[in-house]
């Protein structure tokens, strides 16, 4: 071969020089647990469904969502969304409107008639679910997905538990709830309405059930002793709200006093306004700040003309008046009576002091332990009676729809394992994608979208839904505010910033890999990754 003058060697490529050998540390791709997912009581993979929603692929997003929680449209309305409180974006500008996007996806599923994936293979095992509240339907759904035959026995004539007989229609329209539950029934879950279970053991034995999930909630309104000349006008919140679902609406009169400070008190007071009460007053022992009700619901109630009388207890109820005693906070922040009395007119008094679990059904079950009015369960929701699991309001702890759905899911997994003679252990959690792991420079500035709110006149007189939905454009915008904490969203930044081209781009949906032959371990990709999905590790010896 002839070479040009003074050239003796062929041209070689620097690829022969494996500069990866300089490295003392190496980057590795990881998936970290975003705070929204970590906080969701139903264990939703929020970041992942937002990822699909960002692309406008709403069906894929919905399918990821319902892998954990079948009641998307319902949850998008009634969930107290602790995810948004935890959301990292809250530290940058405002949290992502996760709940609003969830609602959009749930509504879209109902509009488009999306169905759950068909059950692949029946296992031939039969499971009894008692109660069709969120705990029961969630357990039924997850068990059915695993191929088990599921029968739900529900005492009422309609399914849904407190989602139907508690939460008012202006917060959860019933066609939404119906659509969400129908989809579960359509999977082949047998729903027996109007069938109260009195003897779990007998039913399981007689009808050949292999396991049971109890989700009977806490249905009995707590009573407080109030000296009353005439107790006819004293009723409780759950009864009032329950009656709202019958053809005969409750008669509360023009001046309604609600006693209690929780969300139920607020719901009853707002319901009373809509039923025509001129005055709907919440009487509460402690201060407004101490009310367990959520601040924004209290705010909405006040907008609708509900009045608040805090630091007060009802001393006496008599005919059409009540006597209220003023309270004062002591140095420990506890309300103490002052002896100062005041009478006020009241056509009815509604007690909203919480609910108790109906223990009649439970005390009949062999070997079931009850403690402090709640059923004792282990970390995977099994009661002290093997094969019988429980969840939702009846097991104590936080009483919300989302918690109940999470219990139902966990119990379903535990039941599935138990049927195979195994014990379910929740898989270990990934390390958290905390805010300091993000490089927020890369996120554009974008404030939260506010959901439209129904005008005030209609909120005082009708049961129309108060909080509106996002339209498609807004839902997309909101989804795209997600920072994808801890999980690669294929922004190509690592691929770009590597001075050594040591990042391989694998193509859409396939993410990236490192070429350790040339990675010198500078850590630029780790530092610049917006979402904290790369970790630096010591080079293995």
């Amino acid at each position: 071969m002839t070479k040009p003058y003074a050239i003796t060697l062929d041209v070689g490529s620097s690829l022969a020089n494996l500069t990866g050998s300089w490295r003392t540390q190496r980057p590795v791709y990881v998936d970290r647990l975003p705070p929204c997912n970590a906080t969701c009581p139903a264990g939703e993979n929020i970041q992942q469904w937002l990822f699909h929603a960002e692309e406008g692929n709403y069906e894929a997003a919905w399918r990821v969502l319902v892998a954990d929680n079948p009641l998307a449209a319902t949850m998008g309305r009634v969930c107290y969304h602790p995810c948004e409180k935890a959301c990292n974006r809250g530290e940058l500008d405002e949290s992502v409107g996760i709940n609003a996007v969830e609602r959009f996806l749930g509504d879209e599923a109902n509009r488009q008639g999306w169905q759950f994936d068909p059950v692949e293979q029946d296992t031939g095992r039969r499971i009894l679910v008692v109660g069709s509240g969120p705990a029961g339907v969630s357990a039924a759904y997850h068990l059915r997905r695993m191929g088990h035959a599921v029968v739900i026995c529900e005492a009422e004539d309609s399914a849904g538990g407190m989602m139907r007989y508690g939460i008012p229609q202006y917060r959860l329209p019933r066609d939404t709830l119906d659509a969400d539950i129908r989809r579960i029934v359509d999977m082949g879950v047998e729903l027996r309405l109007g069938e109260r279970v009195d003897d779990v053991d007998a039913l399981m034995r007689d009808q050949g059930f292999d396991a049971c999930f109890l989700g009977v909630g806490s249905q009995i309104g707590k009573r407080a002793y109030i000296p009353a000349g005439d107790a006819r006008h004293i009723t409780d919140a759950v009864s009032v709200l329950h009656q709202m679902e019958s053809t005969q609406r409750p008669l509360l009169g023009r001046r309604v006093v609600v006693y209690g400070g929780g969300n139920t008190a607020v719901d009853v007071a707002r319901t009373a306004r809509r039923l025509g009460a001129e005055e709907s007053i919440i009487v509460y022992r402690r201060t407004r700040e101490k009310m367990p009700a959520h601040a924004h619901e209290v705010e909405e109630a006040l907008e609708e003309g509900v009045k608040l009388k805090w630091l007060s207890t009802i001393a006496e109820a008599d005919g059409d008046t009540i006597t209220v005693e003023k309270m004062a906070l002591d140095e420990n922040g506890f309300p103490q009576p002052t002896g100062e009395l005041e009478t006020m007119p009241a056509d009815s008094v509604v007690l909203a002091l919480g609910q108790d679990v109906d223990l009649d059904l439970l005390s009949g079950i062999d070997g079931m332990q009850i403690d402090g009015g709640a059923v004792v369960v282990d970390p995977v929701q099994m009661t002290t009676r093997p094969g019988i699991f429980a969840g939702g309001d009846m097991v104590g702890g936080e009483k919300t729809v989302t918690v109940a759905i999470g219990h139902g899911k966990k119990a379903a997994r535990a039941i599935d394992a138990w049927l195979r003679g195994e014990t379910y252990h929740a898989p270990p959690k990934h390390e958290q994608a905390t805010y300091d792991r993000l490089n927020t420079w890369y996120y554009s500035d974008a404030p939260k979208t506010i959901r439209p709110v129904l005008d005030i006149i209609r909120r005082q007189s009708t049961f129309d839904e108060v909080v509106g939905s996002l339209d498609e454009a807004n839902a997309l915008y909101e989804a795209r505010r997600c920072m994808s904490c801890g999980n690669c969203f294929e922004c190509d930044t690592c691929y770009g910033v590597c001075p050594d081209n040591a990042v391989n781009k694998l193509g859409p949906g396939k993410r990236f890999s490192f070429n350790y032959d040339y990675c010198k371990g500078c850590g630029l990709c780790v530092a610049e990754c917006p979402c904290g999905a790369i970790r630096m590790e010591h080079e293995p010896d």
Partner: protein
Amino acid sequence: MRSSHVKFYQTGTFTVGNRLLNDSDRSVQSTMERTNSLNSGHRACQGCGEALGARYAIDAAMRATDNQLIAANATGCLEVFSTPYPETSWQIPWIHSLFGNAAAVATGIAVALRVKGRTGTRVVAQGGDGGTTDIGFGCLSGMFERNDDVLYICYDNEAYMNTGVQRSSATPPAARTATTQVVGPQPGNVFGQGKNVPRIAMAHEIPYVATATVADVRDLEAKVTKAMSIHGARYIHVLVPCPLGWGAAPHDTVKLARLATESGLFPVFEAEHGEVTDRSTIRRQVAVEEYLKPQRRFAHLFKPTLQSEVIARLQAQADRNIRRYNLLSGETHR
């Protein structure tokens, strides 16, 4: 410069890529087809800003010219770390001659191409700040003055890095280098010397002058692409942090470039025929300390005693840039 006509609130166009954008709107660096003009296996230090900036710039120029590109390179790190005989990291036609003559070599190639009628092939010249602002300056000014059809790209790491961090006319005041030691009444590089080559290029009234950094790849790519759409002399000055010479962590290279612009110390702008036409506005303004602190070349400003006066003088420089280029207000045009 930073704004995009499509609004994507997750990252907008701040990240290198964006899976939500149409292919045609994506950066060159985000594509699987980028040329990797400067290939793996080069011997640049960990986290080298110059290697990064060169790949960003030349890949963009390759795309803009449909891969019809020839590069002339001055002596310096970029040349040394990429081409130890007989290996090369360059996947493009590339020539190195001397430290100070890259602009002249490029001019020669451009003229030869013209004479041969090969008008489709374009030429870039590239070099470090020493090769550009000092020793190669005569050739560069001549290339500007004749309006030769060359894009000259200076990778500014603010000193002669390849020979061990000696001061150049682009070294900032107060910075410690091998030749501006931390001794005497004014430790580090002196104030009031050095030159601003982007402004000197503008004074030649050439068609296009721009500054950029490795912290904003889309902006850099857009400028290279624009430059390649123009004929005549063009100049792009890219700030490329040097972990070794600046005494900074290799993983901070992009961050330091970002802080240089966000503090106002390094204004990012564009000029046509001698007039500034656009600039990147500051998004999250920072005090100069934030930029200076992570760099050991400025350590003497903080230890053993805080040199507030010196820092204030540097802040005044940043403030002057902010005023001069209107870096804090209004929209960026592109």
